[in-house]
């Protein structure tokens, strides 16, 4: 089955293989650069996330793609859908803001120059959950800005299901990666 491919590989020589590897690496690097660039513009560590749980149904289902931004000049408001990550928890959570409390400084006479220097306490809840998220906060009483990855701005259904499928069936991931790698090596352009 692979005899032909091996033959072409031998015919094309080492230079060709190296060139293809270089091409492959540049594609990967471009992807990474675009991802990080987008993250820089949106001010968030992951500007695109895939929904992993059903706690926001029927708004978001597993596999839906969400676009996030986290502008440094904006406070969070009730009704915003935020993605947050609790230290110690491995997966980020997508839930809606239920309460915000803009705390003022305890030091009398000090006024923060920007409203963003002010601490904001946040409570969230999944639309499909009966109660708020205190039990998910792992001992924290409130969320704060530092826990929040971003606000959901846009929505694309189902596209992210590929990644969920790849997580659920790792064989698929290896088959896909292997196939792509082989194609990249054998193809001649």
């Amino acid at each position, binding site marked *: 089955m692979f005899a032909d491919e091996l033959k072409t590989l031998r015919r094309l020589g080492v230079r060709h293989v190296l060139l293809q590897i270089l091409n492959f690496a540049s594609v990967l690097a471009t992807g990474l650069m675009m991802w990080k660039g987008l993250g820089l513009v949106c001010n968030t560590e992951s500007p695109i996330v895939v929904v992993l749980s059903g706690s926001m149904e*029927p*708004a978001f289902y597993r596999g839906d793609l969400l676009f996030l931004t986290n502008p440094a000049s904006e406070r969070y*408001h*009730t*009704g915003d*859908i935020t993605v947050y990550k609790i230290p110690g928890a491995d997966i980020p959570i997508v839930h*809606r*803001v*239920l*309460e*915000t*409390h*803009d*705390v*003022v400084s305890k030091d009398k006479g000090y006024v923060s120059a920007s409203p963003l220097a002010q601490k904001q*306490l946040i409570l969230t*809840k999944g*639309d499909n959950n009966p*109660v*708020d998220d*205190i039990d998910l906060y792992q001992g924290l*009483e409130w969320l704060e800005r530092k826990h929040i990855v971003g606000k*959901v*701005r*846009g*929505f*694309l*259904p189902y596209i992210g299901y590929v990644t969920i499928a790849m997580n659920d069936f790792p064989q698929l991931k290896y088959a896909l990666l292997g196939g792509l790698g082989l194609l990249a090596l054998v193809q001649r352009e």
Partner: protein
Amino acid sequence: MHTVYSRINNVSAFLSSCLMALLAAIALSSLVFTADPKGILDVQSLNIYEGHTRRYHNRWQDVTFVNFNLTADLTPLFNWNTKQLFLYLQAEYVDAKGVKNEVVIWDRIIHKKDKANLSLNGRNKYVFRNLGKSFKGASAANYTLKYNVMPYVGLLTYGEAARTGPLAFPEKRTEVA
């Protein structure tokens, strides 16, 4: 040149760009719909009692109970790219310490256009409590009805459908009337 592989490649690339263009067109089309419906929100009664909350099991805390009346026709918000409407009622006030608060006390998800013409008497769904122990010294609160339009594909939009004037918090009641 015309191998099966290249044909599959071309066809799938063409189909996926068509799909992307279609999705983008749908997402952009919802920018054309700029409905801004307004409704009427009436807070009928406010009562404060002392109670225990889920957050602090062993502490007494003041809890406000809100009864409200709501009439709003939100059907104009439904267009072909509207998946659902998330409707929420929030209270905004500043407490005695100067903390600015926004608290959602009621919400509802509306899936269908024929359910979007609302006329209801409701009361708060979520516990309405202050950061501290009581509401004493807090400013009068505004109650606003807001909505979040969630599309099938595209951008999430927000709006405000109704607002009450500032309503002062009542005195705490010790007995249930």
